[in-house]
Structures are given as structure tokens and as C-alpha cells.
């Protein structure tokens, strides 16, 4: 077997071959990465995992009438003969599909400036496996030492991924960028009177040095598990609901999915007919920005080679733009917003980059103190969100607030409403924006929701 193709050579060879096989347009994406993950439990190494992965994706577009037939393939076998065989198959597969008038590469405007977004720190390349083991061990030790009621643990993890993405297309664009991400997390278990509660805390960053101190991660996780002990159910009621930043971000993730071009042109978003309308309280401003330095969702160009940019999605409560790739933009008669997301094995689709709600005024504590009666949600689970209707109904646990004091742990509840009503009923936006991923939020309070319990 011949040596595997690497980097730009792999992308260039795939493009050349798929064009020769009959594709009128084509693009290719190579994703390479090295990863190391460790888990420590009971002060012992539980798992050490290391890997190197590469995958090459090829897209062929065969012109027919005003549109293109298209297909996408991917392979982790990068031997030249395997890449060539895959390129041939991609063109053949494209010819079997139907022509789509909206398909095709962007009409131009490919990224010509590639800003350094500080997505990787070269100094981190020398980090050892032991450095991760030490970080995980410190997180777990700190969690276990926090309180005698921390009796067990799902372990603490630390890990890193570093790699690069090389993208090229038949319009002559070819570019690459390197990224890294590091994380440390802890999952301690607190117990009391025979009942157990687990909780979790994590820190994620582009640079190892930007991670929160692992011991602090462990202590936060322990405090979160401890405050759940003795949780009770409450009677079904309607009341204010305060979302901590770490759970508020899942509301933002639902919103991100519903402003994505794919859901909009399919009519699969409850917002599809509401462009320009008030969809949230005037306190709500939502930004998507692919060029945030060190952002966990940052990239200099998107999955089609277009420059990323800042888009204000919600402005004072008014829906101001969709997030679009060139396909969904054509379907909607609009222009791409530089939001093509892409894995090596998939066609581009519209998605968020760094997506957040702009911070307002007040910390979590201040917003809670200002809430006479309600629920502070510290954990949300289940999949009860329907993007087509906006109906939301998920499991929740947290602290019951009476006279501004979050004193009583509560659990086995559901909170339900319609996301449109919920966004409009946001009456407090905190100043405490928290990044644990590419979608982020500060503390949010919704004036009233149905809370189901006993």
C-alpha cells in the first residue's frame, strides 16, 4: 500500500480526480486531529485514551439545467488509490440524485483575509499525558475534600484535542486553519440518608492556560452536588423561573436551531414566518460571531470557504437575521451569512458559530434576591423541545425561591411552555455570561411558567 496523502495534497488530489470523473463543481475537506483524554476516579487512573484521526470528505456537484445533482462521501483511508476510488464514486453517486436548483458552491466572495483568531497555542503541543492526569486528579481530590458528604464520584476528566481543517473547492479557494480545545471536568456524588445526587462542572478553553484551576472546578462540582441533597417535589404551580447560565445556554441552543436556515426553509421552525417581528423581550440581544478571538465556535472561514462575521440575530427582542449557508440562502432568496457548518462526512448546513445572548445587569444572586417566589433551575434534562411548534417541556431540578432566598432543594419537576412565550417573558438578563461551549448565556429569568410536580 502507498503512503497516505496528507494536508493540502489530499484535498487537491481529491478535487482534481472528482472533476476528472465528471463533477462540474466540487469541494473537499480534510479534518485531522490528535486527542488525549484521561479519567481519574478514587485517586486512581481509570482511563487513558489517545488517538490520531483523519477523515477526508468530498462533495461532487454535477450540473443539470439551472441546478446541480450532488453527493458527499468521506473516507478515513487516505491511501492515494482509496481517495481516487472515493472521488470516482462521489461523481457517480451525484449522477444518481435529482437536480436541485438551489445547489452549488457560493458564487464567490471567498475569504481572502484569514485573521489569527488564537484558536491554538503552540506551547500546548508539549503538554504530557501526565499533565492531564494531574489536572484530573486535582479536580477529583478537591471535589472529594470539599465535604464529608461527597462519598463517591463518577470521576474527573481532563483532555485535549488539536488538529487542523484544510478546505478547498473547484473555484480555486484552498485554505486551512489549526484549532485546539482543552477541558477539565468533575462529577462528584453527594449522599445523605441513603439518597445520592450527582452534579457536574467543567471548564473548556482554546489554551490550556485559560482553563479554570482544576481544584476550583472540583469544588464547584461538589458544591452543586451538595446543594441538591434532600431535594423534594413541590405541588404543581405557576411561578417565575430563573435559569443559571449553565442551563440558560440550552434555551439559546434551542433558539440557534430555530434560526438556522435549514429549519426555516423546511418550515420546521416555529420562527419561520416571524422575520422582523418581536420574538423576545426588549431586554434580549442575541449575537452570532465567528471571529471572536479564542472563541470555542470561532473559525476564519466557514464550511464553504466564505468569511465568517458578526451577525446580530435578535436586536432588542426583534428577530433580525437567520443564520444561513449559501444553500439555505438561495432557498430563501437571501445571501449567506457565513454560517456554513461542516463535518468532513456531511454537506454544509447552516449553524451557529459563537452564539450568545448579550449580558445585561445583575448577577445570579442579585436576580434571585429580586425574585419573591419561583424556581432557580440548576439542572435541565430530557429532549422535550419541538422546534416546529416551539413547545417546550423538560425535566428540571433546582432550588425553590421564597422571598428572594433559594433555600429549598427541589427535584422531579417539569417546566413547560412555548419558547416564543418564554422568550417574550424574559424579565431579567444577568451580567454573568458563561462560556462552556460555543453557545452561551448569562442568568435569565422568565416571569412565569408552568411547573409540574405533585
Amino acid at each position, binding site marked *: 500500500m502507498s503512503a497516505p496523502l496528507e494536508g493540502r495534497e489530499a484535498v487537491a488530489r481529491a478535487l482534481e480526480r472528482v472533476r476528472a470523473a465528471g463533477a462540474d463543481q466540487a469541494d473537499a475537506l480534510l479534518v485531522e486531529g490528535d486527542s488525549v483524554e484521561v479519567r481519574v476516579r478514587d485517586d486512581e487512573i481509570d482511563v487513558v485514551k489517545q488517538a490520531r484521526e483523519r477523515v477526508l470528505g468530498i462533495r461532487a456537484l454535477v450540473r443539470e439545467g439551472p441546478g446541480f445533482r450532488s453527493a458527499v*462521501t468521506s*473516507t478515513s483511508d487516505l491511501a492515494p488509490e482509496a481517495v481516487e476510488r472515493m472521488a470516482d464514486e462521489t461523481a457517480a453517486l451525484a449522477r444518481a*440524485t435529482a437536480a436541485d436548483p438551489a445547489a452549488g458552491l457560493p458564487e464567490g466572495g471567498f475569504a481572502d483575509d484569514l485573521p489569527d483568531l488564537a484558536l491554538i497555542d503552540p506551547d500546548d503541543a508539549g503538554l504530557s499525558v501526565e499533565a492531564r492526569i494531574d489536572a484530573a486528579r486535582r479536580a477529583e481530590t478537591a471535589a472529594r475534600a470539599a465535604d464529608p458528604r461527597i462519598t463517591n464520584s463518577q470521576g474527573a476528566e481532563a483532555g485535549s484535542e488539536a488538529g487542523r481543517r484544510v478546505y478547498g473547492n473547484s473555484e480555486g479557494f484552498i485554505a486551512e486553519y489549526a484549532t485546539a480545545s482543552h477541558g477539565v471536568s468533575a462529577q462528584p456524588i453527594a449522599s445523605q440518608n441513603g439518597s445520592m445526587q450527582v452534579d457536574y462542572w467543567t471548564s473548556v478553553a482554546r489554551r490550556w492556560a485559560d482553563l479554570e484551576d482544576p481544584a476550583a472546578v472540583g469544588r464547584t462540582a461538589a458544591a452543586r452536588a451538595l446543594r441538591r441533597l434532600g431535594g423534594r417535589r413541590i405541588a404543581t404551580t405557576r411561578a417565575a423561573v430563573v435559569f443559571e447560565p449553565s442551563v440558560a445556554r440550552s434555551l439559546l441552543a434551542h433558539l440557534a436551531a430555530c434560526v438556522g436556515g435549514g429549519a426555516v426553509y423546511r418550515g420546521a421552525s416555529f420562527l419561520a414566518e416571524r422575520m422582523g417581528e418581536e420574538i423576545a423581550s426588549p431586554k434580549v440581544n442575541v449575537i452570532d460571531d465567528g471571529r471572536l478571538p479564542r472563541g470555542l465556535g470561532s473559525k476564519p472561514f466557514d464550511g464553504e470557504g466564505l468569511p465568517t462575521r458578526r451577525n446580530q440575530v435578535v436586536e432588542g427582542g426583534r428577530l433580525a437575521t437567520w443564520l444561513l449557508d449559501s444553500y439555505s440562502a438561495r432557498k430563501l432568496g437571501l445571501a449567506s451569512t457565513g454560517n456554513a457548518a461542516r463535518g468532513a462526512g456531511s454537506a454544509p448546513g447552516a449553524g451557529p458559530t459563537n452564539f450568545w445572548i448579550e449580558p445585561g445587569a445583575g448577577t445570579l444572586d442579585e436576580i434571585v434576591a429580586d425574585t419573591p417566589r419561583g424556581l432557580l433551575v440548576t439542572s435541565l434534562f430530557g429532549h422535550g423541545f419541538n422546534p416546529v411548534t416551539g413547545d417546550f417541556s423538560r425535566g428540571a431540578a433546582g432550588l425553590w425561591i421564597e422571598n428572594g432566598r433559594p433555600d429549598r432543594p427541589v427535584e422531579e419537576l417539569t*417546566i413547560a411552555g412555548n419558547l416564543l412565550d418564554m422568550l417574550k417573558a424574559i424579565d431579567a438578563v444577568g451580567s454573568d455570561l458563561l462560556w462552556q461551549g460555543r453557545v452561551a448565556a448569562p442568568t435569565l429569568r422568565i416571569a412565569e411558567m408552568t411547573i409540574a410536580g*405533585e
Partner: protein
Amino acid sequence: MSAQPTDTSLAFFRERFDLDDARLHGALGTALERRVDHADLFFEYTTQDAVSLEDGIVKSGDRHIEQGVGVRVVDGARQGYAHSDEITVDSLQLAARTARAISEGAGGKTAVSVCGGSRHDLYPVEQAPTELPVGDKVALLSEIDAFARSLDPRIQQVMASLVCVHKHVLVAAADGVLVGDVQPLARLNVQVIAADGGRREVGYEGAGGRFELTRLLDPEAWKPQVREAVRVALLNLEAEPCPAGTMDVVLGPGWPGVLLHEAVGHGLEGDFNRKGTSAFADKLGQRVASEGVTVIDDGTLPGRRGSLNVDDEGTPTRRTTLIENGILVGYLQDRLNARLMGMAPTGNGRRESYAHLPMPRMTNTFMLSGEDDPEDVIRSVDRGLYAVSFGGGQVDITSGKFVFSATEAYKIEGGRIGAPVKGASLIGNGPDVLTRVSRIGSDLELDHGVGTCGKDGQQVPVGVGLPTIRLDQVTVGGTEG
């Protein structure tokens, strides 16, 4: 009679990657150079293809090839794992050296002998699902689109996809296990959006399994599936907001078995119980469900989505009773957790791919039928909820709390099925919920082959099943107080 899956898979890897016994011995020998309890190699070569339709056209086809090898070294409860997408002698040796770095002990070789085989042949197919011409798949989706739209003018959007997987795996372990498998898997998804006035609702119905793809292509199979998706979307156009609070709940047969999967199945996986982190830890031999409740995990059902000839550690799958007449009698085990708990592996060591460590996972999990007439079960409830289909669920293993969301549900009023409701979710406590079972129907059904289970970031196909059951006083999340 066709060749056994093990032989077919062995021949495949030998031919494609030049993997002979000497090379397998060599890599295992490197992994075992220090004294450890166990080492294994997991080879995988997977072809996946999919065609999908929306807006009336099959706009894209895709095809993916994933290959690689994972090398694991186990020492006590410690696991070292390395994987590579190159299946070569060099990469095997490198992975083996990386994986063994977890063990600090002094040298000492373990003998490697190679033998073994699988007992089952649960999904022999004449033609791999990925080998059917793409033109036939495209034609099917176009017919589905036209048929769905012909059923009702309110159908505005049809999204259909056909996903086919053909996976070769080979496990070589230091204790002599050498076993392979060839695993076909296909799934047809139909989702429609119906609109009426300003209101839009969605309906979904899927089907699949490890069988000849022609079964899904038969109009006798896909037409009822499409009708079902359309029926659910139109029904939801009429659905009222769901009441919130505690009430009696009847679950319909089949897919609502996802309750068992979330509420008890995960909590009975060996890893959580070995570590004492499951709400079910130390409950073996105790009552965890009403009398009459028997829950089974069975990886040996022919052609089912959750079935396997052997698990991903080479252990043949089997039928495991988890709860017998209300008493907890068994856990689901992989090799590591079984050894550390002094139990036998149950053939439940599964992994998403070569890039993942195996863990105890469910296969097909279901409750056996009881003796009640399903209609009597519904009639027994004065005011409550009848839930027929669910989206997805999630469980917190440690506290036992679970939640899942209904996609088709009705009020029960005076023992009769009333208006459809939307946005219902059920929440409860795993170790408690099956003690609330007060009626068990005689109508066990398995789901249609669409389940995917996520654990620790790894997705594997599973099945569930349930007869009609009544649960007393469960919390229902809705918007109407």
C-alpha cells in the same frame, strides 16, 4: 448454508489488511509485555450510505467509509486505549505501546492462543444494504414523497431518508478469543409537516433492523409507515395543551418501552453498579417493581436493530432477565465489570466504533406480557393520560430521576380515550416507577427498529418493547395547571 459471520469477517480483514495470526499475536504480545489482566484488539471496517429527500427531491446521496483499530490494555479497573484509522503493523504496535502505558508493573508475558467462534447467525443477508443500487433507493423516496402528499392536502413538507450500514468487526483478545461479525443495519425515516391555518405540526414514523433491505422497500411495509407519519401530524393539529400534575398514566404497547430503557435499564448496567453510582446499586434480590413485572434484555432476537451475534468484546449475546416478577435479579455486564464484580459477562459489552472503549449497554429491552385485556387497562382509569408514542428520554443514573417526552398522547376521561394532547412529558424516579405498575396488558410489542441509545457520548442501536401498562400517579409535565 452460508459461511458463519466469524469466518466471513476473518477472511475480510485477512485479505484487506494482510492481518495474519502472527501480526495479531505480535500486537497482543506488545500490549501484554507488562503484567496486565487483559488486552484486546478491535478492528472495524464500516460502509454507511444514505439518501435523503426534502422539498420533493432527492437532493443528495452520501457514502462513508470508516476503518480503524482500537487496542485496549486492562489492569485492574484501569484501561489504556489507543486507536488509529490506519490498520497496519506499525500503527498496531504503536497503539499497543500507548495503551499499555497505564500499567506500571514489572514484565511477564501472558500466552496468546487464538481460537473461538460465535454461536449465533441472527441476521444473514444475501445482499448488504449498502450494495443495493442507489437508483432503487432514490426511486423509493420519491414514491414516498408523492404518496404522503396524496394522503392529505395539509401535508406541506416530507422529509424521508434511507440509511444503510454494513459493518465488519473482528475482536482478538489475549485470552484466546478471536471472533468476527458482519452486521447489516438499515433504517427508513419518514417525517412530515402538516399545516392548517397558522398552525404547523410534525409526524414521524421510522422502521428498520438487521435484515434484507428489500423488506423496507416493499410497499406493503412503507405505505402503512407513511400513513402513520401523516396520521400523527394531522392528529397533532387538533391536539390540546397537556394538563400538568400527578395522574394515572396508561402506556401503549411497543415504543413506550423506552420507559424501561431510561427508568431501569441504564441503572442496571454493571459499570454504575460496580462503582456504586447507580440508584439500583446493592438492590439485587430486592423488590423494585410490582408483582407480575418481568423485564428482559435479549440480544438474540433475529433481525432486530438491537441484536448482535457477539458483543464488541467477542462475547456471544444472550437473553438476560433483569427483573423477575418484580424482583431485581440481574445486571448487564461487559468483561471488565463482570470480572471486578465476580459475575459472568452477559454479552452486553458494546461500543460505537473502534474509536471508543466498550461499556455495558442494552440490546433489546422489554417487559413480558401480563394477562389484562389492553382495553380494560384503559377503562380502569377515571382521569389520566394515555401515551402511545415518545420522542426521547433521559435519566440521571445516580438520583434515578428520568424524563421522557410524548409525541402522541390523549386524555383519558371516565375510562375512555379523549382529546389528543401535545407537549406532554413524564417524569419520575427509576427505582420507584415500576412499583406503580398496576395493570399489565397481554399485548407485548417490540418497537419498529428506530432506537438509538447515547451513553458517555457513544451512540449504539437498541430496541425496546412493552405491553399496554397502567402506572398509578405519575407526574405529567404540561402547560395547563
